[in-house]
């Protein structure tokens, strides 16, 4: 019991716990759409693209959230534009931007003379280092994302499931798509300090993918994703505290474990799923 309650005596741990709940919730909600749209790779690209923004923010002594936010949102909108207009395959465009923007970040970072910030912290995050002002920024951005999804969940669901049907019936599919890309970018920025650039895609994708193994309803998928996201984050935080290891990596490992358990033991697994698929193919 002391192992659970003990750490709560430390303000940094309380802050980390609040951050975990916020990040876990926001990532699960947005991640549900990311998984259903098949955009996991894009999430990875946006997080890497945030890196030059973070380095620039450090150089100009600007806010971490401002730098990362501008870079991530700009990249996500660029990907959105390329995927809708240009004659390049989306995964190609994403792959190019992914490496290119990250390289730019490293390039600028390596040119910093004198005091250099902790690269490891940028890349892998450190949720226990979150300050009160970070927590405020995180709360504002996270609430912003959740409010928008709360207002537009139906429209986002319809355009994700059937963009043609939704567009023909008057939903603004194009603007909704751009808005969604921007939401993914903001969500990633919110999560960067907790798990870092490299692992943030796991926060976005793994809880939703886990939930997808357990349900056939969209609403319950999102609720389960929140449960898995918040549960894994909090569990991971405790485990990292007990073992004195990196928090971001531990959180992602717990999420991965949850995913594997869901795949192996979930209702869609094994024989049950094969039988269901065979049944679905029967014409009629």
């Amino acid at each position: 019991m002391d192992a659970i309650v003990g750490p709560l005596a430390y303000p940094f741990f309380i802050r980390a716990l609040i951050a975990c709940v916020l990040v876990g919730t926001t990532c699960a909600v947005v991640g549900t759409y990311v998984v259903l749209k098949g955009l996991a790779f894009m999430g990875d690209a946006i997080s890497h693209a945030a890196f030059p923004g973070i380095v620039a923010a450090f150089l100009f002594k600007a806010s971490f959230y401002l730098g990362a936010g501008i870079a991530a949102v700009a990249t996500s909108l660029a990907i959105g534009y390329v995927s809708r207009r240009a004659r390049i395959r989306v995964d190609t465009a994403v792959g190019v931007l992914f490496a290119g923007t990250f390289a730019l970040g490293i390039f600028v970072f390596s040119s910093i003379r004198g005091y250099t910030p902790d690269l490891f912290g940028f890349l892998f995050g450190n949720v226990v280092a979150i300050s009160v002002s970070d927590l405020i920024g995180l709360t504002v951005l996270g609430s912003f994302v959740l409010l928008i999804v709360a207002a537009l969940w139906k429209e986002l669901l319809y355009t994700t499931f059937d963009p043609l049907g939704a567009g023909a019936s008057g939903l603004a599919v194009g603007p909704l798509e751009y808005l969604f890309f921007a939401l993914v970018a903001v969500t990633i920025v919110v999560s960067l300090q907790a798990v870092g650039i490299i692992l943030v895609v796991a926060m976005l994708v793994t809880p939703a993918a886990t939930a997808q193994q357990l349900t056939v309803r969209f609403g319950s998928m999102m609720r389960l994703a929140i449960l898995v996201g918040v549960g894994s984050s909090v569990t991971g935080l405790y485990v990292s505290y007990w073992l004195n290891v990196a928090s971001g990596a531990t959180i992602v490992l717990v999420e991965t474990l949850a995913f594997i358990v869901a795949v192996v033991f979930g209702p869609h697994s094994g024989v049950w799923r094969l039988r269901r698929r065979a049944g679905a193919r029967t014409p009629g």
Partner: protein
Amino acid sequence: MSAPIDPELASAVAPPPGAAVGLPPHPEGDPHHRDHAGPDHRLPGDPTIDAGHARAHADVWLSDVSAGYGDRPALGHIDLAVEAGTLLAVVGPNGAGKSTLLKVMAGLLSPWSGRVEVLGRAPGEEAHRVAYVPQAELVDWQFPVTVGDVVMMGRYPGLGPIRRPGPVDRRAVAEALEQVKMSDHVATQIGSLSGGQRRRVFLARALAADPALFLLDEPVTGIDATTQEDLMDILEAQTRRGRTVVATTHDLACAAQRFHRVAAINQTIIAQGPASLILDPGVLAQTYGGHLLVLGGQAVLMDDAHHHDQPATGERHFHDDEMRAP
């Protein structure tokens, strides 16, 4: 500056270069048309028919429309007027541009040239009165939604943001499911439905929106005869209520028997007129070209209904770049 529609075109075959196509006479007493006889039910060449008249009475009106993807043309010089209350079948071989034509009507694809009016306005302007059902191949059937969820989506555009579905919406969904005889499956995930049941559910989604215009891409492809009869009965009932239905189909027998009118296309309009038109060997030959085999006086289509000018299942975002941003 639209070119005036040739009045003959409303019910005549565009003469092919160097070939004369025999045409059945326009059936004045077509039983399907008794409720909604319009100007183009008069004899071809009737001088009272003019382009403006056809346009004013049309729910869907296209004049010299060309469209395509990227720099690849799919449709050229389409002239078409679909009166309110009409059940129109769009037939043609694979790659003829049937789906493209539907997308232009739905406002999902902007035409390269020509003029389009849907429900009296530009395509997409009256979108809340239009229900579009994509080909079954374009739907992700593993998506975590139930039958009830999918049908409820038909109500979403009318609800607008923030508002949640209420009792009125739930009643509309229940009634739509009742009509397509899927009430017992309301909580079933769509992936475990049969092909026929899937088409029923998507028609129910369209019905739940209570649109003035139904745009249905292959609504009766790959389904059993019972389902086909049921769906056609429902659509027929909708046209009696003054609703307009435009559906692409590979099933020529169904087009001839169950639809009011037919537009045979192959990049452009080959022929349009009463549904029986599609049984005319000349029209068939010209529409389907090499895909048609005539055996002992009977035409056999060498056209595989399961090949489409569409991406395979799972590539649902293929057309995103073609979609209109309203």
